[in-house]
């Protein structure tokens, strides 16, 4: 069997795993619409947030809610997304799912941080202190560390594939644990409840406050989708760049073609 004759078949056999080209075309077609819808939702939501009535107890500081609550929702939504993508990546070994999980992680961490910071800012006028060991805030803080762990392990290996798969397992383990942690923190909080902690986001929310909140949440979700696509695109283009470099190296040192891909990849 001659090597030349077998070459096309080999290309197929290693290549059947994904078609990033199609993903890139899809992303390019979707992104402008996503950005537009996102800007629209955020604009409408912000107008609503600043025209909504103020809370008779909290005054204008209640407006922090329109950022804080969607950020909290997105923090949890993103972690769910990562867990689902990781499961798909582990079971079906689909590279795009892997890419999505890895790309989503810093975005989720940013939402979590935003939630913590706005929560702290909101806490100052409400509770008179920057930080309260409130059950929700504490759970979100733990979630933030779960994100940091996910990001850290994804980048901790010289072999990028190993990092991706370790991160996927960690995401699933974390996902199983999130409800348990939430439950235990709630338990702990009710045991050590102090009188100064009042519950925010009580169910009785007036519709004039609800619709801007939901619109903001929609805007946040669209932003997440758009930024996720951009990050995945970025990663894929980076890979293409590395391949082009490898190809150019190969042409330069033609005979030992098989080994010359290495230097370019070693940087990654």
């Amino acid at each position, binding site marked *: 069997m001659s*090597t030349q004759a077998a070459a096309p078949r080999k290309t197929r056999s*290693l290549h059947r*795993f*994904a078609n*990033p080209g199609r993903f890139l075309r899809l992303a390019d077609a979707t992104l402008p619409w996503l950005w537009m819808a996102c800007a629209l939702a955020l604009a409408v939501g912000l107008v609503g947030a600043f025209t909504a009535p103020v809370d008779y107890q909290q005054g204008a500081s209640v407006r922090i809610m329109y950022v804080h609550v969607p950020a909290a929702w997105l923090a949890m939504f993103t972690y769910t997304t990562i867990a689902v993508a990781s499961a798909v990546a582990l079971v079906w070994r689909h590279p795009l799912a892997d890419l999505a999980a890895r790309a989503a992680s810093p975005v989720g961490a940013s939402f979590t941080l935003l939630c913590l910071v706005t929560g702290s800012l909101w806490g100052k006028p409400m509770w008179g202190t920057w930080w309260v060991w409130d059950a929700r805030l504490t759970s979100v803080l733990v979630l933030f560390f779960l994100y940091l762990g996910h990001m850290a392990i994804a980048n901790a290996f010289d*072999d990028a594939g190993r990092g991706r798969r370790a991160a996927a397992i960690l995401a699933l383990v974390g996902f199983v644990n999130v409800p348990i942690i939430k439950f235990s923190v709630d338990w702990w909080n009710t045991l050590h409840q102090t009188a100064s902690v009042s519950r925010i986001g009580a169910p009785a929310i007036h519709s004039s406050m609800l619709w801007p909140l939901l619109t903001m949440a929609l805007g946040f979700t669209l932003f997440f989708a758009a930024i996720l696509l951009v990050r995945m695109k970025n990663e894929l283009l980076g890979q*293409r760049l*590395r391949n082009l470099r490898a*190809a150019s190296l190969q042409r330069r040192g033609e005979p030992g073609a098989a080994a010359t891909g290495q230097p370019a990849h070693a940087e990654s």
Partner: protein
Amino acid sequence: MAADNSSQAASAPSAAPAAPSGRPRAGVRFAGRDLGCVRGDRAIFAGLDFDLPAGGALVLSGPNGSGKSSLLRVLASLLPPAAGQLLWDGADVARDPEAHRARLHYQGHHEALKPELTAAENLGFWAGLQDKSAGAVARALARFGLADLADQPVRLLSAGQRRRLSLSRILAAPAPLWLLDEPSVGLDARSVRTLEAEIEAHRAAGGLVVLATHQPLDLADPRALSVDDFPPAPVTADDDPWAGALW
């Protein structure tokens, strides 16, 4: 790739398929079809076929970095192949990896010895993981001239003695498939002859051996497989920049 492609098997001089009969010895046949391997983000080899009947020895050759060790790890099911499949007796190995693990001995670059344990304890542990009775430890030690050192902690052994002890692991418990990565490195001439004799005895009993080596071993009628003959499709800028890039 279907099994009837065995005529493509690069290294098989005779492509006569061994009929998988009910008798285990005649049916045992280890084959790979269209195997591809990717490590990190780099493709190592692709489209690799081989076929090994009972009693056969497959000697892997190729320069450093050509993927001999990677191929052995694929054959051991340590590393899942990026493409293709492994067939044992016509059945896909990936369907029952536990059974495949039970039938093989893998000797890699590491010695897997604990310096705190004695030679016999080290060997006994590995034999005990492989086999119910863990019986053949004394014979395995004796074969490589380590009988007197059985109760010595491994930290007191010399590098060559450790190497021999590590290798004697494949004799301590039975397994039909031996996968040996540079088994003769660090061995003295006498131990190399012992190794050759044991490989031949194993083959005579219907066992299979795949080994990577730079130092030619004296084996009867070995098949040669040069991993270098199966390069992955080269990365090209215009044609298909994505080949093998994602895994």
